[in-house]
């Protein structure tokens, strides 16, 4: 009989806290070495957005499969639920960064005393009070809905009544709809408005596709860690295969949106739009091109065959590559506008802060996993997930 309660061991805690300490150290280093407020703020902003989005996708994984009535993933869904615990924490960090001077470092439009004509035209949307209202609505919505889904999932586990399953699906539908809108608008707020003059209608979906592929990759990584620690032995090649297919398909989907946005701007060649890519290709060329290689070419080639999608020794490294790759993607979305090519760079500050956030995210997720049984035994599709096999 396998162990169904996860124990947050001392070792895990130590690793997590050491990582957080590295993050704090890197932050301190940033201040001491005088790397500049822009760079420090942008880093904190990048990571709080990145890890919040992982939490959001963790819950999205649960919700979207609940409303599509799939069964295979049920035995892994606690991972997604636990990841969503990070949402409010990410929100608090982001808020602290904004409140303690971050706004002015990040967003050109907050300097209301010298706005040009175009930015003046956007004041009705890009102004601080409204910005904070939207911020509050998004995080409140995400946190509350995620909490409700977790709670219902727990009740379903204890009770096994179909009523709770229907409730779960209802909340999931709310969550998916809310996320569909809020993820788009929040990406305008927190990312696109950094380059305040620039605009692209596809932007929100592009960011969402990036979040999606990373979030799913991180779910695989957590599942693998749990399996290595002796939990969740029922997760077999078939489950890994499906996650591999998701990673493969979503990487292609991300590349498709990347190409659509880039090609249309390149082709029409309107200066106020091309400036965005011009800046990135001229000054951030390494990361601009590697972004495509790491996030499209590598997953595409490595996960192409059936066998490679089924073995952890391929899927897990690719998941890690995707995790790093989409951090890079976010970097090239934020840094050119927020820091500028003269001051931006990837050094101890960037790497250290990311390690710190990773540690915090791990701690939160493992904490969440340790609070509830690792598998939802009474979920109506739980058996399907255990006896899961398919010919493709």
């Amino acid at each position, binding site marked *: 009989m396998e162990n169904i309660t996860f124990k947050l061991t001392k070792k895990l805690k130590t690793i997590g806290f050491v990582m957080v300490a590295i993050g704090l150290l890197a932050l301190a280093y940033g201040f001491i070495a005088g790397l500049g407020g822009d760079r420090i703020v942008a880093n904190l902003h990048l990571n709080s957005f990145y890890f919040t989005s992982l939490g959001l996708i963790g819950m999205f994984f649960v919700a979207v499969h609940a409303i599509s009535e799939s069964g295979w993933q049920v035995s892994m869904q606690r991972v997604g639920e636990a990841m969503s615990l990070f949402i409010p924490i990410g929100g608090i960090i982001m808020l602290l960064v904004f409140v303690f001077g971050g706004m002015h470092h990040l967003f050109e439009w907050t300097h209301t005393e010298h706005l040009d004509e175009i930015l003046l035209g956007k004041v009705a949307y890009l102004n601080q009070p409204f910005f904070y209202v939207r911020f509050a609505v998004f995080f409140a919505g995400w946190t509350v809905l995620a909490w409700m889904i977790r709670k219902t999932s727990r009740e379903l586990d204890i009770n096994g009544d179909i009523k709770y399953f229907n409730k779960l699906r209802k909340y999931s539908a709310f969550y998916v709809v809310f996320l569909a809108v809020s993820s788009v608008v929040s990406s305008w707020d927190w990312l696109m408005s950094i380059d305040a003059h620039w605009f692209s209608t596809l932007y929100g979906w592009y960011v969402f596709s990036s979040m999606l592929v990373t979030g799913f990759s991180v779910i695989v990584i957590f599942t693998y860690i749990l399996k290595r620690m002796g939990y969740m032995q029922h997760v077999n090649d078939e489950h890994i295969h499906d996650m591999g297919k998701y990673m493969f398909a979503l990487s292609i989907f991300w590349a498709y949106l990347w190409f659509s946005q880039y*090609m249309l701007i390149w082709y029409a060649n309107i200066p106020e739009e091309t400036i965005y890519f011009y800046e990135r290709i001229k000054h951030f060329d390494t990361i601009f091109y590697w972004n495509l290689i790491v996030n499209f070419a590598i997953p595409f080639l490595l996960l192409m065959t059936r066998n490679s999608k089924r073995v952890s020794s391929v899927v897990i490294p690719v998941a890690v590559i995707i995790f790093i790759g989409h951090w890079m993607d976010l970097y090239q979305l934020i840094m050119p506008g927020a820091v500028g090519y003269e001051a931006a760079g990837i050094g101890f500050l960037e790497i250290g802060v990311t390690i710190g956030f990773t540690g915090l995210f791990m701690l939160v997720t493992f904490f969440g996993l340790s609070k509830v049984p690792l598998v939802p035994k009474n979920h109506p599709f739980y058996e399907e997930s255990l006896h899961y096999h398919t010919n*493709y």
Partner: protein
Amino acid sequence: MYVSPIREPLIRGEKDYSQVTKDILAPMAGKPTRYWYMGITLSSAALLFGAWATFMTMYYGIGTWGLNKTVGWGWDITNFVWWVGIGHAGTFISAILLLFRQKWRTSINRSAEAMTLIAVACAGFFPLIHMGRLLLGFFIFPYPNTRALWVNFNSPLLWDVFAISTYLLVSLIFWYVGLIPDLGTVRDKATTKIRKAIYGFLSFGWTGSVKQWSRHETVSLILAGLAAPLVLSVHTIVSFDFATSVIPGWHTTIFPPYFVSGAVFSGFAMVLTLLIVARKALGLEEYITVNHIESMNKVIILTGSIVGIAYITEFFMAWYSGVEYEQYAFLNRAFGPYAWAYWIMMTCNVVTPQLFWFKKIRTSVVATFIISIFVNIGMWFERFVIVVTSLHRDFLPSSWVMYKPSLVEVGLYVGTLGLFFTLFLLFIRVFPVIAIAEVKSVLKSTGSFKKTGHHE
């Protein structure tokens, strides 16, 4: 494979395998019904109208259309995009839903794919006829010629040539490969010599041996894997026709995924419109059940909502961009002389599908039928709004005009509708409308004589 007891069966009624064969082949046997004759008469009449319009266009040129110097694209491109969009459901159902293991697809994929092929053929007609000389249509392909010129590979219109022809060909072989085993069944069930000979010829010598089946499944799966990105690419490239330009209202980066979503949306609406009638007329209600309709309605909510978000995003971004031309283009859409078209589009595409959030409505056959027609209309107007409102008031106010289609243009549109229904009516007489073998293969795990416990 274990199936949770709370899942409802896909196929209704106690059935064994031979019953499935009998039920599905029934519409092909015997004399066509009265309704069938009525339908084909009506659609042939429409087709005749189209033939007249085609003749007028060929004989007098496209001067017979309502196009003018400012509005160079009108109903023709609207119809083209509308038909291509409808052609997206079939391959979406058979490829993407196959990859997502949606077993309910087995009852509808055959007819939806046939619909796709016919719709894409109807679509291809419009750019060809817009070129004015149907017989010189082959100019669009790159072939060595005495002019020493190649086609312009930098043009999205040329990408369309490749996308549409690839889509047509790949959908065709996908559909036919799936059809081969069922044609084998038709051959073996044939009662007359001539039928046996014809279907023997068409079934390519199918025996259903274990290796044939095993590889058949592999081929279907790989084709699905290829067709899935292909479906996305086709409407993406159609959207490039507009979005690579610098016309306000056309040049926007959200177009590719938004067009794809709109295409699937309209495609499912057309599938619903046709199948709700067909299941009744052909007595296939136990195969295409309310559950199938409900599942399709869920796809309609999803894609309809994506389209709705895209409309709002576009509108917001037009304001946010600070580009006055962009802002004007959208105000003109919503409040200009073509505002009626815009609001028809908004109502049909954004409001009506939201009714499907109510279980009562999405499981009602009548309501679904009505809403599916609304969506068909709405999606036609979406293309009309995009094409015409962006063009009719261009950068020079002195060249602002209105556009009205001529009778010839109406004739061309009605003609393709006639072609579509004629070919579909012929299809249901000639080929099995439901994939017999695929339904049989899911009958046990999801049918009503499903066994309890698991057998692996």
